[in-house]
């Protein structure tokens, strides 16, 4: 079999059924096995409350043991067939493509008629859609959910840290973020990361800094940060964090050049990278001299435009820059224009009722919240700074600061990519930055970031052509992580998805990769 039957042939034709496509589901009994399709209830796609009919009703229907037995399928291969493929490189799209996945890894990808799909492969039809690598968000905060006022949020978080972080990780995954870097959380995040990466709970594959290292420390509880007052202490805290199991170190505000140098030296002994939160030009220079690995924020704050010399230095040396611009230039104005976005029904589905209520309460009069005190000025400067780095062709990854006020994990990534396009990247550049470059920045370029044989099977399938309209990245059909399918409108415990699709490994490939990443 090469090209799968078109979708219509397996869902049946609704003919002159007078209303909608709701009737399609009734024909699922005649689905030929091997052609997995989405049976959509279009009106409910976006999740109006809990009564959402599964987008992947068909998938889960096929999880029934009898269906599997009937099909006689060995459940360890998955093929995504028919859609357009953007492989993560800045290269032309491959039309009518196929991706073959085996044991959580991609074994073939290319035009559908060149990809041999073995017997007993579960085939998911992606006709009319776009397939691309899962997104890599280089700046998230699992400990926050978009609540409008940090000071009110910390007491709530105090006793519910892991619960909150699990919600965030799941939201990220369902938004197409298959790998994320958390840059600031209580050390408990290490456990959450391990549970996700062990396949116990659904979520984006996490790389975490745990608490950040800082001299300032204002406004955040102590368990988010390690306060230091000398380079010596900086090194000690770095050592302690590494021993606690973090993947990388984040330096926050107030760090001197010597502080950062001490952190970098200590971290690099173990091959642990250092990400630095930076805004002011002097801090940027200091961090560059001190050898930080990744510049975070840079230009999304209140600073006026950077000097050409600084931009040029960063671009020339290829120091990765993660700007997190959308939470400045998009979140606030978009919410002022359309406050209804705060009542996104997905939030109500994802959060426990008391947290949902509290988060909603925090949005009343949001423009007066302390977080937005200087936002208008930040917006104006960020727009300029974003263009500076893009025009200089700096090495840019995508990060969102998701979880910060009104910056929800459900949409932060594609909003950021959209903002990068608004700021001058072409859509293909922005997609490559958010996948391939992101993987390289976190040192996992061998395993993640592109769709090609040998890589971990992290695939995002969206409805539409993001090269024409980058915002189609918001229309997630489903997400494949480690070869298992996740979708917002279906239960997404890894056990359910792995069992239904079989091509996943519960994250084993990812664990192996993370052990050996450069």
């Amino acid at each position, binding site marked *: 079999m090469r090209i799968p039957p078109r979708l219509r042939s397996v869902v049946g034709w609704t003919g002159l059924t*007078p209303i909608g496509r709701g009737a399609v589901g009734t024909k699922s009994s005649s689905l030929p096995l091997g052609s997995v399709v989405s049976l959509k209830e279009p*009106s409910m796609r976006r999740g109006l409350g809990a009564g959402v009919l599964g987008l992947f009703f068909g998938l889960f229907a096929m999880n029934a043991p009898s269906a599997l037995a009937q099909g006689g399928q060995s459940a360890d291969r998955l093929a995504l067939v028919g859609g357009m493929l953007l492989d993560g490189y800045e290269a032309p*799209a491959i039309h009518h493509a196929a991706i073959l996945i085996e044991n959580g890894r991609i074994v073939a990808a290319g035009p559908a008629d060149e990809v041999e799909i073995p017997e007993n492969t579960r085939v998911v039809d992606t006709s009319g859609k776009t397939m691309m690598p899962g997104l890599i968000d280089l700046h998230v905060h699992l400990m926050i959910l978009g609540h409008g006022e940090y000071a009110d949020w910390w007491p709530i978080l105090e006793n519910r840290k892991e619960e909150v972080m699990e919600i965030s990780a799941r939201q990220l995954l369902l938004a197409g973020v298959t790998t994320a870097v958390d840059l600031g959380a209580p050390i408990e995040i290490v456990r959450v990361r391990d549970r996700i990466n062990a396949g116990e709970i659904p979520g984006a594959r996490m790389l975490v800094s745990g608490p950040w290292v800082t001299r300032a420390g204002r406004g955040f509880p102590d368990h988010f940060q390690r306060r230091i007052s000398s380079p010596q202490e900086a090194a000690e805290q770095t050592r302690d964090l590494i021993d606690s199991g973090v993947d990388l170190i984040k330096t926050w505000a107030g760090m001197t050049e010597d502080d950062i140098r001490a952190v970098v030296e200590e971290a690099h002994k173990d091959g642990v990278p250092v990400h630095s939160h930076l805004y002011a030009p002097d801090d940027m220079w200091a961090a560059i001299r001190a050898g930080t690995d990744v510049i975070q924020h840079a230009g999304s704050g209140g600073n006026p435009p950077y000097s050409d010399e600084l931009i040029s230095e960063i671009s020339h040396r290829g120091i990765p820059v993660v700007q997190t611009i959308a939470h400045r230039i998009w979140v606030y104005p978009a919410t002022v224009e359309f406050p209804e976005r705060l009542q996104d029904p997905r939030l109500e589905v994802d959060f426990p009722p008391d947290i949902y209520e509290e988060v909603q309460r925090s949005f009343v009069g949001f423009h007066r919240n302390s977080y937005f005190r200087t936002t208008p000025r930040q917006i104006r400067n960020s727009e300029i700074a974003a263009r500076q780095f893009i025009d200089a062709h700096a090495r840019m990854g995508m990060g969102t600061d998701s979880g910060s006020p009104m910056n929800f994990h459900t949409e932060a990534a594609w909003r950021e990519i959209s903002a990068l396009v608004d700021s001058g990247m072409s859509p293909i550049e922005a997609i490559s930055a958010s996948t391939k470059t992101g993987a390289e920045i976190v040192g996992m370029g061998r395993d993640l970031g592109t769709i090609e044989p040998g890589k971990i099977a992290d695939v995002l399938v969206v*409805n539409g052509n993001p090269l024409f309209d980058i915002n189609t990245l918001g229309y997630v059909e489903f997400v494949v992580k480690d070869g298992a399918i996740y979708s917002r409108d279906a239960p997404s415990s890894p056990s359910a998805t792995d069992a239904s699709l079989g091509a996943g490994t519960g994250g084993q490939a990812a664990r192996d990769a993370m052990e050996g990443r450069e």
Partner: protein
Amino acid sequence: MTRRAAGRKPRSPMSLPGLAVLTVASALTWALGGSESLHGQARDASLAIVGGYLIDGTEGVPIQNSVVLVDGDRVVHVGTVEDTRIPDGARVIDADGHTVMPGLHEAHAHLFIVGHGIYSDYFTRYHYEQDRMRELMTISARQLLMAGVTSARDVGAQLDDALWIKEEIEEGRMVGPRLFVSGPFLQKTSGPTQEFFRVLVDGPDDARRKARELIDAGVDLLKIIQLGALSREERMAMAEVARAAGVHIAVHANTVEEIRAAAEMGVRTIEHVGAGASPLYPEESIRLMRDNGIFWVPTAMVSRVYNVTDDFPERLDAPQLQEDLAPDVYEDVRESLTFRSRLGYFTGKREVSPHYGDKIRQAHKAGVRLLVGTDSGTPMNFHYESTWKEMDLFVRYGLPPMRVISMATRYPALAYGKLGEMGTIEPGKLADIIVVDGNPLRRMSVLQQDNVIYVIKGGVQYKGPDTQLNLSDR
């Protein structure tokens, strides 16, 4: 969000034909049960759309936490959750987090075609050989309504078929938008395979008689093309008949001379982008359209579909399309589009399409009023997505989003003399309303079909959770 009973006086008193639908019984029920002063607010409602961001079509500032009350087929009240009491018994649609706006209008549709690339094959097969035009029109009508298009103008089809589907929809036997139909084109000459939807006129008397026949049969407008080939006497004869009967005229008019002729005829709309390969319209063409109150329907989609399909041929595989069309029709349509660059339909269109944006900006800037119409049904131009894509295209061309929404809601009502009935969400008007996920003022593409969560036409919900539509009862 809390919804409390009215503690404050409603902002504006209602005056309204809508109240006429109140029954004595329901008024009594309210009088017995109500203790608050609610003068001015509807006392009864069958439907309440609560909590959404209301873009009412008037270009006013959108209303947050809005309430739209519908009774029967009419809007009876528009307010906010703070100032509006939800009448007991009203079915509540929770629009929190969503945009509520008037149903879209598609000003240039062809229900009898479905995107097939080769007309001669298509008509030969489905009209002459298989007699399936009505089946195909039914599918198109449903595609439009499910895309949030609650009213549409069908500007070119066989007379009986056009009138048939209009009536089926009006009588509630079929799912589709309110239709304004022209029936066949009135024109001078025609090629083979298309005569069944073209009426050829020869001389002023013949033109007058044929126009009158269409009007007597029940069309809502006359569609007249080939203005340059028709004599002035022929054109004016048809215009007089139309004016006397109160039906409007839509024409094709490319050149200054044709637009001048159209203005003389008093036409209401000019269809398609004209002025050939010129990068802009001649000033006089623009002036003629503006000063004569002619609405321009550029149907820019006809050019866009070509390029977007080259970039993303997967769009032809859209599951939506495969589900909507009969399997044999889908296969046939798909097959017909295999060698797109050879299709006669796109000859010439590709060359001039780079100018569409400039011409649209030119006309808009000069004050010409545009309507959103797409020529949907033409090759690769599918009913289920055409209308919002035209709106998206207008925004990409630089037109203000709020105005573009007017071009698909209030302007068409204005153009057809129906502003008292439709085009905005205001008390007394027909309840043609859609609820959409997202803010179209920031991103018009949120209007794509999957995001149109509810479709309400004439107070009846045709799409959305808990849709219960019993066509036989209606």
